[in-house]
């Protein structure tokens, strides 16, 4: 079973503990939502899982082997990482931006091969950016840019996709579009971890939710269970408006819960 797992990882910067023995695993075909209040350590955990930051304690395992033992390019082929607010610093075309996702697959001097072109093409098609191929990525709208950047991740055909708040700042239609895309990848057999703040999307799209608070994992389970146990309401310190529609549960943050004591 293809699996990416963080086992008891601790990350410190100076005297601050960003992650405190946090653990999280995702399997192929699974879509895991990583949720929790701002500053809980979600992004940090994601970068640790992506192999971009080595934990002070604990380990990250890919298929039961330490990720740190993997050569950087091999790791990059296995794990695709979508940075929060990912953007290009030069006015590259969408096509060239997506093509960067193939870098870990190409030899030091090799040009773009037929494999590369096919992967780039199908990633752009899946994300609906084919018609934007020659547009400059820096001039796209937020939704278009997120889709282009997601196409860049998909072009690398990673086994695991880690997306840091991919729907932040997008309008509802684009949010649904991006979540649909990620869910399709999970259905296609890739493992997906997505950092989310939107409870409704988390409930509907994720197979499992992992709740982080203060750098520690406080809950890990099926979205509906966490909702019914009140965990979702508790970690954010809010009262939820819940209900069902078309056989699916939904929840909306309704008001601050004074009893729980909200820090922010």
């Amino acid at each position, binding site marked *: 079973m293809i699996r990416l797992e963080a086992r008891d990882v601790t990350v410190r910067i100076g005297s601050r503990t960003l992650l405190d023995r946090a653990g999280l695993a995702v399997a192929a075909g699974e879509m895991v939502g990583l949720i929790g209040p701002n500053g809980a350590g979600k992004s940090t955990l994601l970068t640790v899982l992506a192999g971009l930051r080595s934990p002070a304690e604990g380990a990250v395992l890919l298929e039961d082997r330490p990720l740190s033992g993997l050569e*950087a390019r091999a790791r990059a082929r296995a794990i695709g990482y979508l940075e929060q607010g990912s*953007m290009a610093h*030069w006015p*590259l075309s969408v096509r060239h931006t997506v093509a960067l996702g193939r870098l870990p697959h190409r030899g030091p001097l090799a040009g773009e091969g037929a494999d590369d072109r096919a992967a780039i093409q199908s990633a752009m098609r899946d994300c609906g950016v084919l018609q934007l191929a020659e547009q400059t990525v*820096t001039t796209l709208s937020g939704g278009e840019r997120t889709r282009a950047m997601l196409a860049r991740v998909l072009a690398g055909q990673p086994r695991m996709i880690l997306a840091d708040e991919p729907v932040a700042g997008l309008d509802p239609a684009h949010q649904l579009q991006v979540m649909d895309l990620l869910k399709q990848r999970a259905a296609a057999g890739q493992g997906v971890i997505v950092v989310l703040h939107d409870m409704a999307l988390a409930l509907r799209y994720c197979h499992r939710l992992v709740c982080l608070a203060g750098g520690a994992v406080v809950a890990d389970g099926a979205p509906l269970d966490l909702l019914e146990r009140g965990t979702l309401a508790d970690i954010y310190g809010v009262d939820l408006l819940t209900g069902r529609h078309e056989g699916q549960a939904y929840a909306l943050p309704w008001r601050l819960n004074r009893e729980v004591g909200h820090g922010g």
Partner: protein
Amino acid sequence: MIGNMIRTGPLIASLTLLMLGLLVLSFLVGPADIAPLELSQALLAGGDSPTALVAREIRLPRAVLGAMVGFVLGLSGAALQGLLRNPLAEPGLLGTSGAAAFGAVCVIYFGIAGLAGLALPLAGIAGALVAVGIVHLIAGREPGTLTLVLAGVAVTALASAFTSLALNLAPNAHAALEIAFWLMGSLTDRSLSHVGLALPFMLAGCLVLLSQSRALDALALGECTAASLGVSLPRVRTALVLGTALAVGAAVSVSGSIGFVGLVVPHLVRSLVAQRPGAALLPSGLAGACLLLAGDISVRLLPTNDELKLGVVTALIGAPFFLYLLTRLRREMR
């Protein structure tokens, strides 16, 4: 569809042809009025005839150095702009130019330049290497990009302070003038031994820089995403610091500081390679060589009393052109 059609091959081929053409032209142009055919024959035949000496000892090194120095400046400018994702970066940014210049100025100051012909470039290269050492010390073992730049700025400031000090304390007016002129940058009166001395360093530096093409492409998406694509950031930074130190240090050591080529050329080239920072490297080097050769030919053709210094000409043309580019860039980047 234009973006897909752009291949760097034809661009590199045409720039190479242009460079070779300018190289030949640079060899043929000079104050001694010798027919092209005669000059070329004298070079190939060798010997110690006056024509052969002019061809071998004056024209050839000047033309070759023009191409080499221009290549280094264009390439390192493109590489540093790629690393910093900033179109205002230039080859001297990491302190190597300033330090190399100071090393060379020391040699003039102490009057060693006249005693040993190669003392000047050697001191320049030594200066560049010392600068790398200091940058390394300041920035620490795994420097962030910002730390690296700040360290470079500090080293540049220090080197330029000492250079001013040398000018200030110059033993006589002649020495001060010599230092000032040398700092302006020029390719006159360089010999083949200058070429031989600087070439290995420049070659090594350029190869190191060119090897980072993929990494610079990935860095277009920021450091974090580049790392997720398998790029080792510490390795890229080290490669660029070392590469520019070797190449730019050696270039400044033989030519003095020639500004604006490394700043302007990557801007011209990027629009021809669909803005990809890695793909801009080699064409920037070639275009830099073309520009410097053209500039060096023009200072020989301009009817001025004393030959204008090459660095003065590149600055005179480069600065207004750079302003023009900036106004255009502002529209593009919006």
